[in-house]
């Protein structure tokens, strides 16, 4: 870390702190703290919406996922723009703004509660947000810590703590005004950083057409393990289908896993889930007219294209750089280090002791260990997997060695502590450190700091208001405004601690999955009652409660008992029924009447349609809401007022 980098980071943090202080000074009412006074500038609102929407999770987590899955991830960009911006701003934004203003709602749960005249709904929504948003906050924090730790030569844990404290300080003080002002600065930095990243990547690879063609020509380098799950190259969609019932992993039962992971979890889970993100819905309530939303839509479309479009394209193209161009000026320490992936080949790689059994040495993989030429002898070792394509040119007379690993991105991320499949969360940071000039590394550091802080600030704000405004005030009555702000601040701290604990213990290929789970859960639980509540006067309290219950419980059931990765990770199915999920038996064999593909189908594919169907059916078979209340909700005078 050189002096210029340190100075730039300090200046950035000081400006961020000043904007947070400005928000603190401008916060005079509860509405200022909760919805930025309902008079936000449209461009600030658009940048704030975009910067909150796009976090390190999108850039590092999903960018890394694109390095593994290929450019098909761009379908998420299509949904991000067409649904997350166009539909959100042109169809949902104004009704949300109008209803939020008219009903005097300050938070998403409060909007739902006042639409349906139900405190129970407000408390349930708030509890779901408060309990599950730390999962998403954890994903964002991990994304930042993976990049910042190595740059500052501090531990991953220390990077997590520093991160959380800085963001918490200005959220607790400045409320949503502070959050939105800092978001706007951070959004502008992100825009510059990502545009340069795309231009530099295309420039290095000979232009868009040449770069894409070079990536397409690498289809023969797809590892066998990825081919088995449907990978057909980085410029092709994965194989589509649904495995026949009873087939095991070695009989073709996993042949379509990649398509379903890409489309159901990454594209649909996040692409649709964005519409029901509480911290984004609140943004619509911060502007004073539809005109502001119209103007914000223009800025939002460009912003999202430059964020996710760039991250996913560069993530996929990093394969061309790593496989064909990467040359490391380094000092090679050992060109035959052995790392053991464990008896089943799926464990985390660990160094092999000199006196290890022959069996361990036989299954171990060979790596090259090295330090970069500009690193001191005490710097931690870096590793690159050895293949028959690896090139080493020894430097003469004390000159640096040259190492050309010729590995695809996912394999380049393999090293001690990762499985043989690698850790895709580290690919984008590694690409920037290796392929980009040092000055860009500093700009990208600020880009990631901005992306993480702008999203975390809203997550913390939303978690805090969920407990303070939506739970505490409901039980203590509206007259406790001062205390509820205090409870909000305490809740922010509790939420941060939970996210930190999760981030400390859950690491590796987790960012995209954790984000998709939270987005999917929000969509299944909140989306039908939110959208139908805006447009359908027949939609009533019973239907909203039923839809919330069905959406949430179906998602939870699917995550705990069917979805392979989460069910195995959470362990409830194993503890209760003695098997990893409901599709396999105790020996891990696929049940005869079930397809193994079900274990990679995202909960949103099942839970959202069920939740929507429940809402419509219950609304039609139960009593319509009181006409006076409906008239009030859609702009009329308050009943009995």
């Amino acid at each position: 870390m050189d002096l210029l980098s340190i100075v730039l980071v300090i200046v950035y943090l000081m400006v961020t702190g000043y904007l947070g202080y400005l928000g603190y000074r401008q916060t005079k009412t509860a509405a200022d703290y909760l919805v930025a006074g309902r008079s936000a500038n449209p461009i600030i609102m658009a940048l704030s919406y975009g910067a909150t929407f796009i976090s390190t999770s999108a850039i590092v987590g999903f960018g890394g996922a694109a390095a593994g899955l290929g450019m098909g991830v761009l379908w998420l960009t299509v949904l991000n723009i067409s649904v997350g911006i166009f539909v959100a701003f042109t169809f949902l934004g104004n009704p949300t703004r109008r209803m939020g203003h008219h009903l005097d709602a300050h938070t998403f749960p409060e909007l739902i509660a006042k639409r349906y005249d139900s405190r129970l709904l407000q408390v349930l929504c708030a509890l779901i947000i408060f309990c599950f948003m730390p999962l998403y906050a954890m994903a964002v924090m991990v994304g930042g810590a993976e990049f910042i730790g190595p740059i500052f030569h501090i531990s991953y844990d220390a990077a997590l703590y520093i991160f959380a404290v800085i963001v918490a300080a200005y959220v607790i003080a400045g409320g949503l005004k502070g959050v939105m002002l800092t978001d706007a600065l951070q959004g502008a930095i992100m825009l510059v950083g990502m545009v340069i990243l795309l231009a530099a990547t295309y420039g290095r690879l000979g232009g868009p057409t040449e770069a894409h063609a070079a990536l397409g020509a690498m289809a023969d380098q797809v590892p066998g393990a990825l081919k088995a799950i449907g990978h057909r190259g980085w410029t092709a969609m994965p194989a589509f289908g649904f495995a026949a019932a009873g087939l095991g992993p070695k009989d073709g039962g996993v042949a379509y896993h990649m398509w379903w992971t890409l489309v159901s979890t990454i594209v649909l889970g996040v692409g649709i889930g964005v519409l029901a993100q509480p911290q984004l819905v609140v943004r619509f309530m911060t502007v004073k007219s539809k005109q502001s939303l119209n103007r914000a839509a223009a800025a939002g479309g460009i912003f999202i294209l430059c964020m996710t479009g760039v991250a996913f394209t560069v993530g996929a193209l990093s394969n061309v750089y790593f496989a064909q161009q990467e040359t490391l000026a380094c000092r090679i320490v050992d060109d035959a280090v052995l790392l053991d992936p464990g008896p089943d080949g799926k464990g985390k790689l660990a160094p092999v002791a000199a006196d290890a059994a022959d069996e361990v040495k036989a299954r171990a993989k060979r790596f090259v260990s090295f330090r970069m030429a500009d690193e001191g002898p005490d710097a931690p070792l870096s590793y690159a997997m050895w293949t028959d394509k690896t090139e080493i040119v020894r430097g003469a007379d004390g000159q640096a060695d040259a190492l050309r690993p010729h590995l695809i991105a996912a394999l380049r991320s393999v090293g001690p502590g990762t499985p043989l499949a690698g850790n895709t969360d580290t690919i984008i940071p590694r690409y920037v450190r290796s392929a980009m000039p040092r000055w860009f590394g500093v700009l990208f550091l600020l880009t990631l700091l901005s992306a993480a802080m702008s999203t975390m600030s809203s997550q913390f704000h939303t978690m805090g208001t969920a407990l303070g405004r939506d739970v505490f005030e409901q039980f203590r009555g509206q007259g406790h405004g001062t205390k509820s702000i205090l409870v909000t601040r305490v809740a922010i701290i509790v939420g941060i601690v939970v996210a930190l604990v999760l981030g400390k213990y859950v690491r590796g290929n987790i960012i995209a999955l954790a984000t998709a789970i939270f987005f999917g859960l929000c969509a299944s639980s909140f989306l039908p009652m939110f959208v139908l509540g805006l447009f359908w006067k027949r939609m009533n309290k019973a239907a909203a409660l039923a839809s919330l219950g069905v959406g949430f419980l179906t998602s939870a059931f699917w995550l705990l008992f069917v979805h392979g990765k989460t069910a195995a990770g959470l362990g409830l199915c194993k503890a209760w029924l003695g098997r990893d999920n409901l599709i396999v038996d105790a020996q891990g064999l696929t049940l005869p009447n079930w397809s193994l593909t079900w274990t990679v189908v995202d909960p949103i594919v099942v839970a959202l349609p069920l939740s929507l169907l429940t809402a419509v059916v219950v609304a039609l078979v139960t009593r319509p809401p009181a006409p006076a209340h409906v008239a009030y909700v859609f702009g009329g005078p308050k009943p009995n007022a």
Partner: protein
Amino acid sequence: MTVLGIEDPGVWLAYVLSLAGAALCVGYGLANWNKGEEPKKE
């Protein structure tokens, strides 16, 4: 048919639609730049 060096229509379509989506947002925003302004006391 190859578009921008990408052969699979499932992928180049996503690339093109991303650009088209952003253009749609900009077009909509500019076309309605001065529309939708509204003043209420309550």
